């Protein structure tokens, strides 16, 4: 049977792509080391535990899904996921390897649990997946991805959004889906997005480090408490676009209550509160 080795919460942002693509020297400079150093720690942890699959809970930024038919939850059931052109040409990465069989199993299990995702046989992934992913999973020397993924997209754009509680429960349902998969696979669950940022209106660029750090602390210690927050609370605390943190909450829902972070980092910089948190699950 499949098992869950841990979870990762990580911000996603185009800025992370620009810095990653600028190369090792820029990643390691004074400005960006506080962000990229901790990702290296997560990368070596993944190197040690070598998960067979990643399930990545993220949100699309109108690079695959559009407002003509916007899915609340959308699940990938493909064997590969091309990189989306977000309007500037696609980043030069090969398609992400997928695992259609695991995707279909998760689809069946979620539906049995009364979660009904849009099922995607084709899905282009954007920076919601591939801004953090290369930092923990890309073998630059070989130019290849190492770990197949199953992407699970959450609507955080078009209100009404699924509630924080619903997203936590989605994570719990995802946990059952993984644990009931008959193959002997080890899985790490990833949730991307946030933390505080505000990209529109007069509060453009506002970052709220106290709340971000409080969020990470509560996520680790008492995640169910975060289910009581409404989107209105989250927007007031962290900005309109910060509601992406529900992806972290879903990730946390897939882990046992007593999981504790082994890597934690927070770096408020320019217009983003960048967070990173990796949880190991005792086997």
């Amino acid at each position, binding site marked *: 049977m499949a098992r869950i080795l841990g979870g990762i919460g990580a911000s996603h942002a*185009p800025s992370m792509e620009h810095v990653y693509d600028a190369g090792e020297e820029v990643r390691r400079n004074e400005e960006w080391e506080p962000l990229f150093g901790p990702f290296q720690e997560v990368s070596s942890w993944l190197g040690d535990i070598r998960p067979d699959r990643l399930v990545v809970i993220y949100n699309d930024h109108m690079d695959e899904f559009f407002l003509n038919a916007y899915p609340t939850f959308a699940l990938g059931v493909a064997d590969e996921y091309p990189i989306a052109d977000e309007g500037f040409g696609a980043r030069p990465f090969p398609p992400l390897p997928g695992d259609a069989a695991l995707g279909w199993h998760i689809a069946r299990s979620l539906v049995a649990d009364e979660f009904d995702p849009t099922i995607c046989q084709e899905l282009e992934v954007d920076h919601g997946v591939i801004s953090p992913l290369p930092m923990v999973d890309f073998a630059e020397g070989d130019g290849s991805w190492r770990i197949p993924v199953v992407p699970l997209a959450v609507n955080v754009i*078009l*209100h009404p959004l699924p509630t924080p509680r619903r997203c936590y429960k989605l994570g719990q349902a995802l946990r059952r889906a993984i644990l009931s998969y008959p193959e002997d696979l080890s899985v790490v669950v990833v949730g991307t997005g946030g933390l505080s940022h505000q990209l529109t209106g007069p509060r453009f660029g506002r970052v709220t480090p106290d709340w971000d750090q409080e969020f990470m602390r509560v996520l680790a210690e008492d995640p169910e408490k975060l289910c009581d927050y409404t989107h209105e609370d989250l*927007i007031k605390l962290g900005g309109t676009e910060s509601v992406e943190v529900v992806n972290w909450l879903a990730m946390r829902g897939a882990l046992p209550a007593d999981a504790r972070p082994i890597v934690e980092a927070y770096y408020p910089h320019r217009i983003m509160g960048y967070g990173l948190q990796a949880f190991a699950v005792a086997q």
Partner: protein
Amino acid sequence: MPNESTTAAELTEEYLERLNAVQPRELPEDLDLFDELAATRGIRLNKAAYSLKDGHQRELFERDEEAWMEQFGLTGDERELIRARDWIGLWRAGMTIYVMVKLSGVTGVPLPEIGRQMKESG
């Protein structure tokens, strides 16, 4: 038709509370929401900027911006907002930030400049 008293009983306080909380209602004026009103208002502008995912649409934009705009049934006011690179106006007209960055790319106006204008909109 359901019996009226039965229907009313089903609308429990717990349900009504959830219904009320599902969408922010009491945000300060300077915090926006992409909801029914914005999505309805912005559908043409969002469709237009979303098209810029496609390299051919970007080429057309660069070659003949007016011809590019012609494809989406934009109103005269909406076209003027695009011509003027009026980012605050586009935002108020319902364009989401996620497609605005695609328009930012093709017009060569970086996000920090859009942000500078946004900050001045208060």
